[in-house]
C-alpha cells in the first residue's frame, strides 16, 4: 500500500504488525495485521473508537508496549532504513525522543513531577546533542517561548504541577519538537483539554510544522483528524478498515463503519433532533466473529462477510477499504 507520494521512499513503513495482551481471561489480539505508511512531511491520522487498537499500534512502533502483559507477535517497522522491530535497545534509544518523538494524552506521563521543567528539557537535549549545559539551557528556554509559555525564563524553574493542563501540554510539545524529529507520534494530545485550549494547541502545531517532518496523530475525534491530517487511517476492533486522503474518507467513505461513524457524530445543531447512530456495539476481542468484525452492526452485511475476513481492497485514488462491497 503506497502513499500518494510514490516517488519518495515513505518515512515509515509498517507491515503486518500484530500485538496481543494477556489478561485473567487469557490472551487477546489488540492489533491485527496492521499495515500503513507515513510519507515524508505528511500528517496521518489514525482514528477509531476505544479498543480499536490505535494506541497499541502507535506504542508498538517504537516498542513501547510493556511486556508483560503485552507482546508484539509479528511485524516490521521500517524507519530510515532500519527495522525498529529488529533494532537493538541502544539503537532504539538513539531514535526515541530524537528522530521519533511522542506526545501523550497526559503530559504528566512524559514530565517528571519531581524535577523542574528546565532540568527536564536540558536533560533531553544533552541526551541527543553534543552541546554545553549552558547552550542547552538557552535552547530550551527559547523553545518555551516558541510554544507560547509566558515568562519562559521563570518557568524553567517551575515544576510541572504548578502549571495548567494546557501549559503542560505546550511543554510536552516543546520537548517533542525541539530536536526536529522526522516523525512525531501524538496520542490523543488534546483529549484532556478544554475545547478552547484545544484550538490553541492545534494552532500551535500548525505554526510549528516547519520544525518537524511527519505527524502520526492518534485520536477518536474525527473533528481533530479533519483539522490536522491529510491522510486518514480508520481502525475498528483491532483491524484497519479504511485508509485514504482526508477528503476521500470524509466525503466518500468506502467502509460502512466509516460511513456510520461520520453520520453518528453530533454536529452543531439548531435544536433537538435524533442522531443517526450505529446499532449494536463493538464485539469483545474474546468474541470476534468468523469473518468481518463489523458484520453484526453493518446494514450491508451478506453471507461472505460472515465467513471470510475482507482484505483491504483498492478503491482508487489511494483509498482502500476492507469490505467485500469494494472487492
Amino acid at each position, binding site marked *: 500500500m503506497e502513499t500518494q507520494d510514490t516517488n519518495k521512499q515513505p518515512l515509515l513503513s509498517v507491515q503486518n504488525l500484530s500485538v496481543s495482551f494477556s489478561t485473567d481471561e487469557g490472551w487477546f489480539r489488540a492489533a491485527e495485521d496492521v499495515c500503513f505508511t507515513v510519507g515524508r512531511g505528511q500528517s496521518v491520522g489514525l482514528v477509531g473508537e476505544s479498543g480499536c487498537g490505535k494506541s497499541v499500534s502507535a506504542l508498538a512502533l517504537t516498542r513501547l508496549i510493556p511486556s508483560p502483559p503485552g507482546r508484539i507477535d509479528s511485524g516490521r517497522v521500517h524507519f530510515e532504513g532500519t527495522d525498529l522491530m529488529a533494532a537493538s535497545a541502544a539503537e532504539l534509544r538513539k531514535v526515541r525522543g530524537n528522530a521519533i518523538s511522542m506526545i501523550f494524552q497526559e503530559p504528566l506521563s512524559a514530565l517528571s513531577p519531581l524535577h523542574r521543567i528546565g532540568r527536564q528539557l536540558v536533560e533531553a537535549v544533552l541526551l541527543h546533542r553534543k552541546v554545553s549545559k549552558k547552550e542547552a539551557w538557552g535552547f530550551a528556554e527559547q523553545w518555551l517561548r516558541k510554544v507560547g509559555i509566558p515568562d519562559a525564563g521563570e518557568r524553567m524553574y517551575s515544576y510541572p504541577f504548578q502549571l495548567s493542563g494546557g501549559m503542560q501540554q505546550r511543554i510536552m510539545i516543546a520537548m517533542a519538537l525541539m530536536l526536529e524529529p522526522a516523525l512525531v507520534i501524538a496520542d490523543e494530545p488534546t483529549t484532556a483539554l478544554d475545547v478552547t485550549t484545544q484550538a*490553541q494547541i492545534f494552532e500551535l502545531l500548525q505554526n510549528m510544522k516547519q520544525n518537524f517532518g511527519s505527524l502520526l496523530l492518534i485520536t477518536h475525534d*474525527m473533528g481533530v483528524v479533519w483539522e490536522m491530517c491529510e491522510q486518514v487511517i480508520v481502525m475498528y476492533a483491532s483491524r484497519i478498515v479504511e485508509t485514504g486522503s482526508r477528503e476521500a474518507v470524509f466525503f466518500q467513505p468506502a467502509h460502512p463503519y466509516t460511513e456510520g461513524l461520520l453520520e453518528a457524530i453530533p454536529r*452543531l445543531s439548531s435544536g433537538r433532533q435524533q*442522531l*443517526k447512530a450505529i446499532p449494536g456495539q463493538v464485539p469483545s476481542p474474546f468474541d470476534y466473529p468468523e469473518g468481518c468484525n463489523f458484520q453484526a452492526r453493518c446494514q450491508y452485511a451478506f453471507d461472505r462477510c460472515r465467513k471470510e475476513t475482507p482484505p483491504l481492497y483498492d478503491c482508487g485514488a489511494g483509498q482502500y477499504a476492507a469490505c467485500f462491497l469494494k472487492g
Partner: protein
Amino acid sequence: MAEPRSEEPSNFKGGNVQPLLSIEELKTWFPVKRGLFSRSRDYIRAVDGVSLDLLPGQTLGLVGESGCGKTTLGRTLLGLEQASAGRMHFKNHLLNKVSRKQMNRLRQEIQVIFQDPLSSLNPRMSVMDIVTEGLLQFKRIEGSREAHARRLVEEVGLSEAAIYRYPHEFSGGQRQRINIARAISLRPDFIICDEAVSALDVSIQAQVINLLITLQERYQLAYLFISHDLSVVSNIADHVAVMYLGQILEKGKTFDIIQEPLHPYTRALIAAVPVPGEARLSRSHRVKGEAPSAANPPSGCRFHPRCPDAMPVCREAPPRLQRVGDRDVLCHLY
C-alpha cells in the same frame, strides 16, 4: 408557594405555564483557608449568581468548560452542596430548605444521571435490584419485581436477560442505559444529566442521546443537560445557557445562539469546534490564555482578560444582564 419573579425568564412562553424549576441568583461558594492563622477568607465562587428557568417537558442545556461551575450547580440542586445564597424552586418546594426526608421523597420527581456509568452502579447488585430499588422503596412495583424490571430494561434497549446480570458484565454504553432505566423507573418530572454521555464512544453516544430524546417525548421529561460539548448539547436541547466562572454569559434558544452567538465567549466556543468538511471560523473569534481560578475572578467582566472584543469598561465594571430579542447576554457590547 413559589413567589412571583420580578423579571420574566427568557424562555417563558407567555401564557400560564409555570416553570418546573426556577433558580434565582444562586450562589455556591466554597471557603478556602489562606493560612493556618489567617483570619481573612477566600472563596471559590463556583456558582456566582445564576438564574435559570426550566419548563415542564423542556430540555435546558448548560454548557461550559472545566471549572465553570456547571457540575457544582447540578450538585447544589440535588442538595449535595449547600447553596450560599439565592433560591431554587422546584414545583412548589423551596429546595434550599427541604428536609432530608422531603428530599428523599422528591427522588420520585427529581433524578440524576452522572458521567461515569460504573461508579453509579453498586457492583454487588443485579440489574433487577438496581432498577427496581426506588420502586421498592416507594412501594410502586407493578406486578412482580422481575416483570417490572424486564419492562424497564426493554425500554432502554437492553435484552430482558440483562436483569439477572451484574454491572461489570456490561459495556460503558449499556451501563449508562441501566442508569437511565433506574432514573426513569419512578417516572420523575425532571432529570439532571451531568456529562451523561461524555465518557462514551461516538457511536454509542449517539445511541444514548437518541434514547434520552425518545424517553423525553414519551414521558414529558424535563432535562437539565450539563455538558462541555456544545455539539452534543445542541442536538438534545432547545434552550441553552453558556456558563463561565460561575456565571451565565448567554442564554436563549439553541437555534438563535448557534445561528448568531452574541457573547464573545459563545462565539469562541462555537469557533473552537472542528467541523469536518468546513474551514474554521475566523481567528478573530479565538480566545487567549486559559480560564483563571474561580477563587480569584478578574475584575469587572470575568471574561475580559481573554476576550478579543474587550473594551476599557470591561475591566472596570461588571456587565449587567441585557435582553436582546429572546435572549439574555451578560456583556458590555450590548
